[in-house]
């Protein structure tokens, strides 16, 4: 039994997440300079970002609209008047010596987000709050020095805080996936974890199974991939269980997750003691969310992931695992919807889904492409399935055609016409060929008729070979059975 499994026998993990998501605005939250990943260091600053004396913040409307979209999508209570506060701490990547954030009057409270459980089913996770704040710059460490790049400083973030009710590392990871999916559906963030556009802190505590009282928690910082969420939380559960089982006590502290070493480290901060000294920002009047703004947000809300999942299962009779795969990315779900529309019949949904998730998904995956880059359009997939449906091509031919569409971007109909790929399904034509095959193989005919059934495949193969693979397998089989009996 693994250490984790042993730990989980005695201890119940209680996990809360604080997830930061960078909003996909063009300019910064409180400053006018641009946001662009990968720009040369300190090339995206302005007097506000540098916190030059005399500078003042102004607030980006798009950041508010994006945060509101998330608020609406999570059925949060949205404050008509929320407030920005200064959160003070000294750090070289925080140019003002404080971060503009929200404190006791956040934009959103009491929301929910449904997560998909790996074993099937869903769990509704309560969100304590969603608030707006600004990002810090980046520090890189080189020997005795740290180098500070303020390009990212001031980029808008939403911080999503869950109630402490995630029960396992898997659930924590699933929450991250659900939020990632949601913000991408809403079009408010790329949420690319590799670019640091989505980051997570996890509060982990353990309580003895059967007890209600929460244990002392540790906060894990700097978790920046789905995989690491699970690993970091599992590692922390095992660490705490080890301490508790050994009669020790958990210290309330902040720990930094080091993904390279697969371990966490205590951030000893006595010397840099902080008391955030929250202060309503005197430079920023209260943030008022009025009716027209809300109406505009509501009017432009897309279909959300869980609604889409339900619809795919209900209307298209998809199996849940396949439907989950299709809704994972909004572009993929849109692709599927577009394919059904192009095809014209809901009944083809399962076939379309299979083609999209298996053939197309496989090819894209192999080439490291996303669905947005797919050379095969939804109309192509629909046309391909139609060609199979009406017997023009066989399923096997379809795979060849698919490969050709994928490589050249040419439509399936054009490929079929160009290459004369039309399936031969005329029984008379196939009978003529079958008789030729039989005439050329008298020994096999005799043997088959004597009871060697396994030779049936030989005849099918021979007909196929004679037709260059174009003979309808079904018709060929029917004709041969009749002729050979």
């Amino acid at each position, binding site marked *: 039994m693994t250490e984790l499994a042993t730990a989980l026998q005695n201890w119940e993990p209680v996990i809360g997440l604080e997830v930061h998501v960078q909003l996909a605005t*063009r*300019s910064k939250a409180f400053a*006018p300079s641009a946001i662009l990943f990968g720009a*040369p260091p300190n090339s995206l600053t302005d007097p506000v970002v540098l916190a030059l004396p005399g500078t003042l913040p102004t*607030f980006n409307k798009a950041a508010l609209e994006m945060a509101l979209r998330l608020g609406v999508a999570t059925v949060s209570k949205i404050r008509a008047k929320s407030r920005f506060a200064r959160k003070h701490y000294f750090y070289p990547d925080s140019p003002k010596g404080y971060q503009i954030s929200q404190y006791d009057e956040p934009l959103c409270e009491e929301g929910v987000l449904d997560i998909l459980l790996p074993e099937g089913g869903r769990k509704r996770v309560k969100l304590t709050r969603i608030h707006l704040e600004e990002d810090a710059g980046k520090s890189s460490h080189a020997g005795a020095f740290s180098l500070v790049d303020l390009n990212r400083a001031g980029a808008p973030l939403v911080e999503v805080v869950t109630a402490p009710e995630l029960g396992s590392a898997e659930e924590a990871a699933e929450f991250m996936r659900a939020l990632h999916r949601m913000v991408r559906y809403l079009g408010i963030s790329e949420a690319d974890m590799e670019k640091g556009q989505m980051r997570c802190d996890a509060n982990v505590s353990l309580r003895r199974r059967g007890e209600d009282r929460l244990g002392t928690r540790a906060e894990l910082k700097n978790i920046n991939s789905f995989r690491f969420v699970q690993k970091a939380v599992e590692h922390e559960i095992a660490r705490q269980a080890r301490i508790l089982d050994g009669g020790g006590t958990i210290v309330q502290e902040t*720990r930094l997750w080091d993904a390279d070493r697969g371990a966490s480290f*205590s951030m000893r901060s006595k010397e840099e003691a902080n008391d955030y000294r929250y202060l309503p920002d005197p430079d*920023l*009047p209260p943030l*008022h969310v009025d009716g027209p703004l809300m109406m505009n947000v509501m009017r432009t809300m897309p279909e959300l992931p869980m609604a889409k999942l339900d619809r795919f299962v209900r209307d298209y009779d998809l199996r849940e695992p396949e439907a989950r795969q299709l809704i994972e990315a909004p572009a993929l779900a849109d692709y599927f919807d577009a394919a059904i529309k192009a095809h014209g019949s809901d009944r083809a949904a399962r076939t379309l889904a299979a083609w999209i998730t298996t053939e197309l998904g496989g090819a894209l995956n192999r080439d490291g492409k996303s669905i947005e880059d797919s050379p095969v359009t939804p109309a192509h997939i629909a046309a391909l399935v139609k060609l199979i449906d009406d017997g023009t091509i066989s399923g096997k031919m379809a795979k060849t055609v698919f490969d050709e569409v994928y490589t050249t971007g040419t439509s399936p109909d054009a490929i079929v016409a160009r290459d004369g790929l039309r399936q031969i399904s005329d029984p008379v034509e196939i009978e003529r060929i079958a008789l030729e095959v039989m005439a050329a193989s008298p020994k096999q005919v005799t043997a088959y008729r004597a009871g060697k059934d396994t030779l049936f495949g030989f005849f099918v193969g021979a007909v196929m070979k004679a037709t260059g693979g174009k003979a309808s397998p079904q018709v060929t089989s029917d004709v041969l059975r009749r002729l050979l009996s």
Partner: protein
Amino acid sequence: MSGLTRAEVEELAVLARLELTEDELARMQVDLAAILVHMEALAEVDTSAVAPMTHAVPMDLRLRKDEPQPSLPVEVALRAAPDARDGHFRVPNIIKTQEGA
């Protein structure tokens, strides 16, 4: 609240990142206590039904259009920095962590 201890003064100085000499600390303790005595008058005022006034003129936050403005050239951004290297602001190493259990 006016009985400000030396330890509290030192703690405040750490929070505010102010290096104070022995003399300054002693002087600060006396001065702050003398000022804070006068702040006690605020407690006399009944403010139970009063909302805090955070801004001199009541107004809502105006929203800026999401249109990026030109950034400062890197050399201008770094020009006034006491220590800049390779396009960065340079500071003594930040990270001080200790391996945990």
